[in-house]
């Protein structure tokens, strides 16, 4: 399967964006949401979600709590903290700035 490299930091942004809409989600739900959100364009190696989650946890953007799924599997649920919300805003603003700049470069003269 050919795989598009995911730009650095974008995965984190997608996770934050996903969690901002939902109350709390476990890893598989986040993976599915990211897939839908990105229209399947970003076919990420699914497991790379987990190091990203760890980074966000250590950074204090997320908090995690163990709970049970509807099928009664034990799962770790993640939710956004206040700090995570601020980080999302900053990342989005930065992303828009960068992508606008790239747009400007690519626009035919």
């Amino acid at each position: 399967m050919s795989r598009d490299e995911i730009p650095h930091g974008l995965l984190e942004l997608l996770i934050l964006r996903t969690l901002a809409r939902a109350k709390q989600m476990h890893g598989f739900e986040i993976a599915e949401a990211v897939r839908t959100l990105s229209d399947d364009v970003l076919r990420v190696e699914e497991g790379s979600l987990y190091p990203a989650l760890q980074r966000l946890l250590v950074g204090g953007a997320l908090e995690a709590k163990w709970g049970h799924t509807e099928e009664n599997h034990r799962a770790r649920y993640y939710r956004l903290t206040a700090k995570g919300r601020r980080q999302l805003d900053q990342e989005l603003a930065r992303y828009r700035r960068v992508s606008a700049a790239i747009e400007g470069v690519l626009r035919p003269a």
Partner: protein
Amino acid sequence: MRFWRRLSMLFQRRRVEQDLAEEMRLHVHLRAKQLERDGAAPASSHREAQRRFGNVLSLQDQSRDVWLFRWLEDLLQDLRFALRTSARRPAFTAAAIATIALGVGAATAVFSVVDAVLLRPLPYRDPHRVIVIWDRAQRDREGQTVASFEDFEAYRRGAELVRDVSAAGLIRPTLNDRGTRRKYLAGVVSAATFDVLGTAAALGTARLSGGEGCAVVVSHSFWTTALFADAAVIGRSIDLDGTACVVQAVMPGSFRFYPKRADMWFFLGHDPAGRQRLPYVVIFARLGPHVRLARAVAELQAIHASLHAGDDHGKDRAADADDAQRELTYLASSTLRSTLVVLFGAVVALLCIASLNVGGLLLARFAHRQRELAVRMALGCGSGRIIRQILAEGMALSLSGAVLGTCLAAAAVTCLPWDHAGELPEGVTVSLNVPVAIFAVLVTGVAVLVSGLVPALNGARADLRPSLASAARGLVGAGGSLRISRWMIMTQVAVSFVVLTATVVLADSVLHLETTSLGFRTENITTTHVDLAKYADSQARIQFQDALLRKLQGLPGVTSSAIGSFFPPYREDAMEHLEIRGSDPRHGVYDVLSCAVSPGYFDSLETRLLRGRLFNDHDRLGAAPVAIVSESLANEYFPGRDALGEEIRVEQFSRTSRWMNIVGVVADWKHLEWDARWADSRLVFQPLAQSADVAFDVAIRARPGSADSGRAIRRAIVSLDDSIPNETIHTLDSEVAEMRAYPRFRALVISFFALAGLVITATGLQGTLHQIVSRRIPEFGLRRATGAQSGDLFWLVAKQGGAPVLAGILAGVAAAPALARVSGSFFPGLRMADPAAMALGALTLVLATACTIAFPAWRAARVDPVTALREE
């Protein structure tokens, strides 16, 4: 916050990893379920889910990196690797550890003494505000931190920036304990002294209680030895100089004050004689709040100047003051401070050499492993990782060395008998404490950095391609690391050279102390002090002296006997003013020493008469006053004319002698200057029978093997008067030996450090060259095969080793004048720029390194082209 989260995760490492693994398992499970729902076969769905998930182990690793302190893990791994590598080369490892241990151990041990003597605050209240005030003229010329009593009174009345001005002088009272008499050393202090210091007494209170009579504060050692640690001693009377003195207080054992090794202190006006003033005193004071020392000194100088405005000798006199700690050290021993500074310099130099040495050896070893490093870098190992690994090897070695060294230093500090090291001020205890521990850690840090960082940084610069390519050919230049090796050897040689030169200078001065003819002979002469204070009449004293000499002369085995104010050797400390009749008295300088002697004095000491005559039995009280002077005095005060027949007089403590006619000139005596050199003394001798001194020394020269001379002298004295106090009996030989002991000890210690430095430098050079030669054996084989002679190869290696040695020596020579200025400022005897000493230092280094260069060079010369090329 982030750090704490990481740390808490690190501590719950097991749980965190289990959580992660469970999460990942769930993900794969749910994905497989979903694929099945979408119609995949159950068998393949799990495989597909795993494939889509990716490499679980690698992902777990990546997650772990997020919170793990990766470098710590790496460091531990590197250390383990370093230990394994070191264990494979036990000889190298042992040598490196021993080198660092020597450097760190010596530095820490010497620092513990420096700390105890120079850095640790005195046990006074607010110790850094206690100062000592002195007269600059007195101190410059005599090395005595004293001032006159008039000065003291003027400061006490006039000084506003310093408070609690107090004075201390010294006397020698005799304790009469049920018939046994012994002399002790006592300080006489003004009432405020103990308040200035703020040291509480161990028993009683060290304050004047208002009584009229004699009151004494005793030292802890006097209390334990002479008063048998009597707990109820306060208020008891003891007999000192025939006066009943009430014991006021016992000071604690740690109390340090002037005079050094004082047994007791009296308050001024309350000593056994009830003295109200002293000729010379050490002045202590406390700086006022927020007053800087410089301002206080300026005020004291103004007071001093107005007091001495009309003086004849006022022009080179001025008040000066400094921190009490510095001055008490100076009072205890004028050379202690400089000795410590010199020693400390030597051990720091040794530490430098040791660290550079281990660094150099590691560098050479890594140059040897360049190929291994290059391969590892080619396989993707980051250069940071390589640096860390090299650093870890250096650290493993130097840390073990430092720990061993610190243990050795601790053993030295706790086991050596510091209490008996005579030069240390009283009450100073050398011990391991927090500052010493901090110093040891710092020193270790330096050793680790120097020995590890230099090779590490160099290793990181390693360029892949040349090393790999040249390694393949077996012709390794390893230019960069060689250049640094050379620099390190050069620095070691330069430092080694400086220490060697200092050693030669000190050893030379010791040799000078040992071999110089002093102008007198001390063999088999035994002496003791006699105090005739109870003989008020001078005629009675003279009779006693005559009778004593007659008695001693008649003893079996005694070849000569004599009496004098003092016997040599002596440190020139009593400074008297010489005046010549008919010349301007203002030209006189306080630099002569007078001594009253019996007629047999010069014969006993075998001092030669140069001109005129010696004293005889006719030079008595009623006869014309006469004097004999030493040759250097005659030459200096009577240049170009004969001193015989001239009239002189001496003035000491404002007591002036009568005019005396010079009747003889004797050969010079030498005394020990404070920078440990003998110098000619300017001496004036007077007949004993014309001066009738109260206290004097008596000495006899006995044939070797005759009965106990000390006992014989004592018996002779007691047979004349059994109330005269016992004084210590000693031989002049032992006094000369004692004077020579400190310079000799100092030279011995520094030569030990110099030798250690030399050995380390030489072995380091040998090790480095050895590794270079091992690396170049194939190249040498090729050279031999293409026609090079073995002599050519020998010189090739010899030049490689010799060049940095010569460069190091040149650097040392170039630095010598600057070092001489620095060392000369605190230790005038250390003439670092002495060409002969430098030549000898250089020669020693060249010889020592030549031996160590010759061996690897010889090995290179012996390379067999066939074997060498086959090795490739």
